[in-house]
C-alpha cells in the first residue's frame, strides 16, 4: 500500500507539472481522461490510489501553474489575475521573485488547511445556509468597492460591465471549455499582443530572493483564511472571485503587488484543498478534481485522511520542484527573443482554443482579447475584467 501510495503521488506530481507548465492544459482535462480510463486502472489499483493520483495532480498544478502565467503571459482560469502583476515583475527582472511569492502563498495555504480543517468540520452545516443567502450582496459590495477605489470611475465601470456581458454570453454558448478562451483572451493574449506591439525586451532575471517579513504575510493570510473556505463550498466561486473579494477586505493601496501575488498563491491552493473537505462534509462538488473523485469513490473518513496526507506530501515535493522550474525559466528567458516567443505562444494558445473550444470558442477568444487590449490601452486595472466571472456569479445568486 505504501509503495502504491508513493507511486500514485509521483505520477500525480508528474502529470500536475505537465498541466502546470503547458499553457491551456487544465487539470480537468487530465481528470476527465483518468475517469474515462478508470475501469482499466481500477483492475490494477484500488480506487483510493487513483484518488491520490488526482489529488496530487491537482495540488501540484496549483504550485506550478503560475510559472507560464508570469514568465510567458499565458494564464489559466486560476492564475489569470497574476498575469498583470507577474508581467510587471518580469519586466523588472523579478519574474522568479513573483513565482516565489505565489509559492509562499501556496505553502501558507497548506499550513492554513490544518487550522481550517477542524473549524470547517464543525461549522460548515451552520454557516452554509447563511453564506449562500449573503453571497449575492457580498459580491455586489466587493464589485462596488473595487470601482469606488478608482479616481476615474467611468472607464472601470464600462470595462467591468462589458466583461460581465462577455462572460454571460460566453458561459451560455455551450462551449466545451468556456473559461479557457474567455480568460486567455482577457488576460493572456491581450498582454502578449501588447508586448509584441511594444517590442518588449525581457531583462536578465534575478534569482536571489529574500523572504518577506511577517508584516507583509499577515494581510494575505487573514484574507485567505476568511474568504477561501467560503468560496470553496459555494458554486460559481473560484480562486479569482476569492482573490477579488479578499483584496476588497483591505482599504485602498493597503495590499501591495507582493501581497497580492502571495494572496493569489494561497487562495489557489486553499480553494482546491477545501473543495475536498467540502465533498466529504457536504457532498458538494466545487472543483474538477473533486468531481473526478466523486465519480470514483464515496469518500469516508479513511479516504479523507489519505487525501490530506497526499496534499501534504505533494506540497513538500512541489515546493522545491517549482523553485527549480522557475529558476530554469528565469535563467533562460532573457536569452530568448521575447517578441518571437510571444508570437509563438499566441499561435499555440489559438490552436489549443480551436481544439478544445472550437470556432465559437475562438470567437470568444478574439473578442476577449479586444476587450483586454481596450483595458490595457485605457490604463485601467486588469482586475475589472474579472467582471466576466463576477457578474454571471452575481446573477447566479440573484435572490428571486
Amino acid at each position, binding site marked *: 500500500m505504501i509503495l502504491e501510495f508513493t507511486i500514485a503521488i509521483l505520477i500525480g506530481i508528474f502529470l500536475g507539472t505537465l498541466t502546470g507548465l503547458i499553457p491551456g492544459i487544465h487539470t*480537468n482535462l487530465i481528470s476527465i481522461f483518468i475517469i474515462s480510463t478508470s475501469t482499466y486502472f481500477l483492475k490494477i489499483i484500488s480506487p483510493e490510489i487513483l484518488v491520490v493520483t488526482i489529488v496530487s495532480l491537482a495540488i501540484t498544478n496549483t504550485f506550478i501553474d503560475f510559472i507560464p502565467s508570469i514568465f510567458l503571459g499565458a494564464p489559466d482560469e486560476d492564475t489569470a489575475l497574476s498575469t498583470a502583476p507577474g508581467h510587471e515583475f518580469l519586466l523588472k527582472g523579478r519574474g522568479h521573485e513573483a513565482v516565489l511569492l505565489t509559492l509562499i502563498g501556496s505553502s501558507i495555504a497548506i499550513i492554513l488547511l490544518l487550522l481550517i480543517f477542524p473549524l470547517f468540520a464543525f461549522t460548515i452545516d451552520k454557516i452554509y445556509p447563511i453564506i449562500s443567502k449573503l453571497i449575492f450582496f457580498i459580491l455586489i459590495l466587493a464589485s462596488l468597492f473595487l470601482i469606488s477605489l478608482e479616481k476615474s470611475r467611468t472607464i472601470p465601470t464600462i470595462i467591468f460591465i462589458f466583461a460581465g456581458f462577455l462572460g*454571460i454570453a*460566453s458561459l451560455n454558448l*455551450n462551449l466545451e471549455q468556456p473559461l479557457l478562451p474567455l480568460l486567455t483572451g482577457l488576460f493572456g493574449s491581450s498582454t502578449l499582443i501588447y508586448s509584441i506591439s511594444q517590442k518588449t525586451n525581457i531583462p536578465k532575471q534575478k534569482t536571489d530572493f529574500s523572504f518577506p517579513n511577517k508584516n507583509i504575510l499577515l494581510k494575505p493570510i487573514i484574507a485567505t483564511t476568511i474568504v477561501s473556505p467560503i468560496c470553496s463550498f459555494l458554486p460559481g466561486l473560484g480562486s479569482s472571485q476569492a482573490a477579488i473579494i479578499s483584496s476588497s477586505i483591505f482599504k485602498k493601496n493597503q495590499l501591495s503587488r507582493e501581497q497580492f501575488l502571495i494572496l493569489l498563491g494561497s487562495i489557489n491552493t486553499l480553494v482546491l484543498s477545501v473543495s475536498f473537505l467540502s465533498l466529504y462534509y457536504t457532498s458538494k462538488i466545487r472543483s474538477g478534481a473533486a468531481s473526478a473523485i466523486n465519480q470514483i469513490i464515496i469518500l469516508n473518513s479513511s479516504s479523507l485522511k489519505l487525501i490530506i496526507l497526499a496534499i501534504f506530501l505533494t506540497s513538500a515535493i512541489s515546493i522545491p520542484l517549482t523553485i527549480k522550474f522557475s529558476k530554469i525559466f528565469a535563467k533562460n528567458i532573457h536569452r530568448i527573443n521575447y517578441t518571437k516567443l510571444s508570437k509563438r505562444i499566441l499561435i499555440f494558445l489559438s490552436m489549443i482554443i480551436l481544439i478544445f473550444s472550437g470556432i465559437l470558442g475562438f470567437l470568444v477568444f*478574439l473578442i476577449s482579447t479586444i*476587450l483586454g487590449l481596450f483595458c490595457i*490601452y485605457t490604463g485601467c486595472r486588469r482586475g475589472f475584467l474579472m467582471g466576466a466571472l463576477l457578474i454571471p456569479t452575481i446573477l447566479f445568486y440573484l435572490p428571486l
Partner: protein
Amino acid sequence: MNKQKIFFILSIIGIILLLILSQNSFEKISGKIEKIIYQDGAIKIYIKNESKEILLFTKKIINLKENDKIIVVGKKYEINKIIANKIILQNDS
C-alpha cells in the same frame, strides 16, 4: 481614430454578436429516465447511457417517472451538466 476608440467599438460589436449567438445556442439530449433525485431546491435527472446530468431548478414535484422517454433542451453547465430549459415527454401511450 486612436486605438482606444477602435478597441471600444470592436468590443461592443463583438459582445453584441456573442450575446445574439448565445441566445440561439442550446444543448439537446434524449433518452429514458434512469432516476430522478430531488435535492436542494433542484431536481437532478439521469438518463440511461448518458453521462450528462440534467438539472432543473424548481421546488415543484415534476410529472415524470423512471423509464419515461424525454427530450431535454437546455444549457451546458460545468463539465457534465445541463440546465434544462424545456423537457418534452415522448411516451407513446
